[in-house]
């Protein structure tokens, strides 16, 4: 059953990813991307990383996709279509991507991963404690750096998006 669900999710992810990078209606592309992200959240659910899945849904679904939609709403009209990409460029890009994929898959298939069969349940508290741990292997510093970064980004985004007006008033 989990196998079936995985394959369904994989199909969803790959199909919508392809749709997302080829669709010529921009908001559709965004929605396809959302489906890909939801599919990935499903993957997280499947491996019992519920917390991560919820984060994926909240941040990507509720945050980043909404940002994308807002951007589209601000600068695109429903009747507009995206420009077609030149066939030559598509071919080159496709060939390159296929070559890269081939190399990667080859590398993956030849590498013997030391898979372990043990199963440990993941608690939210464990992640929280690890993030805030200041002992060896703890992530308190990157965690705080990320929080500072987010504040900086928030301010920066406001300043940049406000653009001219802000500077004119100064």
């Amino acid at each position, binding site marked *: 059953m989990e196998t079936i669900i995985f394959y369904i999710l994989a199909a969803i992810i790959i199909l919508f990813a392809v749709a997302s990078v080829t669709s010529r209606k921009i908001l559709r592309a965004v929605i396809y991307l959302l489906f890909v992200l939801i599919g990935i959240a499903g993957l997280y659910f499947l491996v019992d990383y519920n917390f991560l899945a919820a984060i994926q849904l909240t941040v990507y679904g509720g945050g980043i996709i909404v940002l994308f939609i807002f951007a589209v709403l601000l600068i695109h009209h429903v009747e507009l279509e995206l420009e077609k990409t030149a066939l030559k460029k598509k071919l080159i890009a496709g060939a*390159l*991507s296929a*070559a*890269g994929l081939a*190399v990667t898959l*080859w590398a993956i298939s*030849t590498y013997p991963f030391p898979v372990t069969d043990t199963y440990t349940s993941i608690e939210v508290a464990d992640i929280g404690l690890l993030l805030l741990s200041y002992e060896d292997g703890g992530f308190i510093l990157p965690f705080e750096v990320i929080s500072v970064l987010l504040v900086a980004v928030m301010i920066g985004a406001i300043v940049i998006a406000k653009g001219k007006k802000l500077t004119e008033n100064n």
Partner: protein
Amino acid sequence: MDFSYTILIPLIPLALFLILGLFSKKIPASISGWLGSLGLGTSFALSLYTAYHYFMEGKLEGVYQTFIYKQTWLVFTDKLHIDLGVLIDPISVMMMVVVTTISFMVHLYSRGYMHGDDGYTRFFSYLALFSFSMLGLVMATNLFQMYIFWELVGASSFLLIGYYYTKPSAVAAAKKAFIVTRFADLGFLLGILLISYYTGTFDFQDLTSQEGMLIAGWGASASFMGLSVFTWGLILIYMGGVGKSAMLPFHIWLPDAMEGPTPVSALIHAATMVVAGVYLVARLFPAFYFVDGGFALQVVAYVGAISSLVAALIAITQTDIKRILAFSTMSQIGYMMLALGVSKYEGHEGLGYMASMFHLFTHAMFKALLFLGAGSVIHAVHSNYMKDMGSLRKYMPITHITFLIAALSIAGFPGFAGFFSKDEILVAAFENNKLIYYSSVLVAGLTAFYMFRLYFNIFWGEDRKYKHTPHESPLSMTIPLIFLAFMSIAGGYIPFSQFVTADLMPFEAHINIPLAAIASSVGIIGIIIAFIFYKKPSELSKKFSNAFGVIYTFIYNKLYFDELYLFVTKKILFGIVAFSASWFDKNVVDGSMIGIGNVTVSVANKIKGMQSGKLQDYAMSFVGGIVVIAMVVFYIWIS
């Protein structure tokens, strides 16, 4: 004894130049003139004190000592280095006195002459620059330092000749002077390099060491066309002197240089800069005398004699009073050159050397006086040509008297300064080279003739209809005239042989009565002829010139030297050499360069498409590269 204070003598004009030059817009004219005169007066006083100090106390066992204060500047090898410093010996002290005296007088004179000119302050700053450069040249301790100041003198001369830069003729004259002297200086530089390469030194002291041992050793080192390299070096150095001193064949710039203000002509083109060539030969005299038995010195003598004769001939026919004086200067410098050329080294044998320096001194005084007097006349009638002048003795008594004194002095009238110095030269020539002696006597007569032709034309002759009645010049101009007139008489009574000699040992010089009588009688004959021709307006001179016909025209056009140069430069250099050179430059040199450029541009146009500015394209190359590298790495890893 300490002579290090002499460094102040050139530094005061330098400071003046900086102050007047940098703040020329701020300093009012009334102050700048006084400032310049005051500064040069200080230098003048200092150099007089130096002369007194040196000639009274500078002797050690009857030989004048050489004092050198110097600082090493550029080091090439242990021996070969360029120093900057001060050299004190009889001729440099003498030159200091001459330069500061004339410069001081010219400063005083210019306050009146340049009054009301727009560039008044600028003029004084240039004068200060020139004084500094000339003093630096005189006090140089080595060839290279001398060359530096030599060029500085050329540059300031350029500035002063082109002072009226709104006049095209002045600009052209400045350019001409600069280019001609530059060409000659090329020889000077080559000579310096040649000599320093073979001797390994720039220092005057090493080059002129009294024993002459080193010089003899160097002379044998290498030879070219039968002469030692050292002789060739000396001749090349002398070429620089020929250029600066307006000897044949580099004399063509001097007449044109009269476009500058008259005080400038007095300072630069009569008394100081043009004698730099003489000074240079005198400075290197032992080298000239000892190397190859004095072949280079022979060259000096003949160049001087020929220049002297030719210049005197040309001077007879000219009508522009400043040009007459210019050719006269050339002629007199030729005298000094030939005196050096016929001189020997030791004791009374070195009479020519002493005579040359003596004549340099007296000539500076009376020739500066002549120029300043001419300036005074020009100031009064606003013209350079004799046809606009006449009977000026009534209007300008002081100028008239001082000019007469100077003319008598240059003509070698007994009792005046020129008589004594010229007599010494003739004695030296008579003792060594009869041919040069006869030519010199002829030049003496010609000198007296053209000088009095000038005198009578200006101050006697017909009374022209002047637009403004000419009047005597202001006090600021007449005081220098009077002072220089005094010097033109008194200068002759200085016992020069006690001070300036080739081997630095004083000796007693006597007037050779028969030779002096011949010379003065020749001069007096010249004066009388001039009196007959020009005292009253008459057709006599015209008849004579018509009688000589072609020769007169030939001489009147300065032997067609300018035209010869033009032919050589325009037709030969520009027409044939430059044409083929420019063809080569355009088609071969430029062609290859442009070809390289074109290839580069076309290649760049081809490959600049890669730099499309699109992040995606860059990322594509990046990923492609990574894929290739990964493939290679995996291939190696597996195999």
